[in-house]
């Protein structure tokens, strides 16, 4: 399992890899550098034990401290509460977005088998134009392929708009998104 710091209120440039000891022990190092060796000889080298084997060179010190603070912060809130909020806000957003004429949600329209992000498209308004209107209203979304072009082909759409929710997203934020989408439709005279 791997995760990144900047998607859990932490800094960019750092993340974590979790794996079973026997698997990680069998894996060769992917980088050479300081702190990852045990002995070095002209004929061959041996590697430091886990996890140092995979942490060659100067570590991202400030990032590690920041990620630690993020972990403490989330643990203090409680990951079960974070998950419950994410599920509730996603359910609310699915309901509100589902009421917009001409809007198609990609993937499940119920809050099952999905995380706190919803991709959608609006008939007649390109995602880049949708996001431009939302941006002018202070609503930040992502437009394009979201690193998943084959998935867009699967759904038969050229690209999509994606709204992401997290522990700080409120129902008022979702309402602002829905209002913005209504404005985008009006601006481009659709529906």
């Amino acid at each position, binding site marked *: 399992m791997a995760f990144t710091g900047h998607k859990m209120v932490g800094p960019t440039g750092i993340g974590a890899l979790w794996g079973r000891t026997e698997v990680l022990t069998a894996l060769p190092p992917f980088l050479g550098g300081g702190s990852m060796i045990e002995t070095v000889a002209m004929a061959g080298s041996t590697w430091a034990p886990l996890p140092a084997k995979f942490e060659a060179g100067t570590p991202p010190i400030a990032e590690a401290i920041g990620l630690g603070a993020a972990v403490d912060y989330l643990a203090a809130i409680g990951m079960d509460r974070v998950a419950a909020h994410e599920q509730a806000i996603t359910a609310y957003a699915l309901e509100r977005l589902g009421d917009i004429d001409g809007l198609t949600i990609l993937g499940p329209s119920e809050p099952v088998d999905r995380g706190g992000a919803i991709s959608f498209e609006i008939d007649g308004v390109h995602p880049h134009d949708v996001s431009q*209107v939302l941006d002018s209203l202070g609503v930040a979304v992502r437009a*394009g392929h979201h690193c998943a*072009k084959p998935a867009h082909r699967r759904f038969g759409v*050229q690209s999509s708009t994606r709204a992401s929710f997290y522990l700080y997203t409120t129902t008022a934020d979702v309402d602002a998104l829905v209002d913005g989408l209504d404005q985008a439709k009006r601006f481009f005279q659709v529906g």
Partner: protein
Amino acid sequence: MDLQSLYQAIILDHYRAPHHAGLREPYEAEVHHVNPTCGDEVTLRVHLVDGTVSDISYDAEGCSISQASTSVLADLLIGKPVDEAMTVHETFVELMQGRGQVEPDEDVLEDGVAFAGVAKFPARVKCALLGWMAWKDATAQAVVDARG
């Protein structure tokens, strides 16, 4: 950011009813250009007769800016000698890369002046240039082929 300065009425008109759209015969060169950051795509054909742009036909998928600018391109360049069309092309590129500081010349660019506001939105400049870069590429190929 001022939406009205980005989305001029002329742009929205061209977006809703693009001019010269569709792929036609005959043509000497066809190119396919994409904007990987947003997924916009255009297939564009150029037909030259005696050094003049006789037809520009295209199949485009993308945002209002890229669709409208390709429509304006076809309007402006069809019927022009290649040399003159290249000059118009240069003028349009200069406008788009001018960060909103370039005063557009309506005598040269006609409806193209509506894109002056797009130059203030760095993320959208590539949208406006997609069809124009495709046209230059296709025309260069057609001219080289004609020279044999």
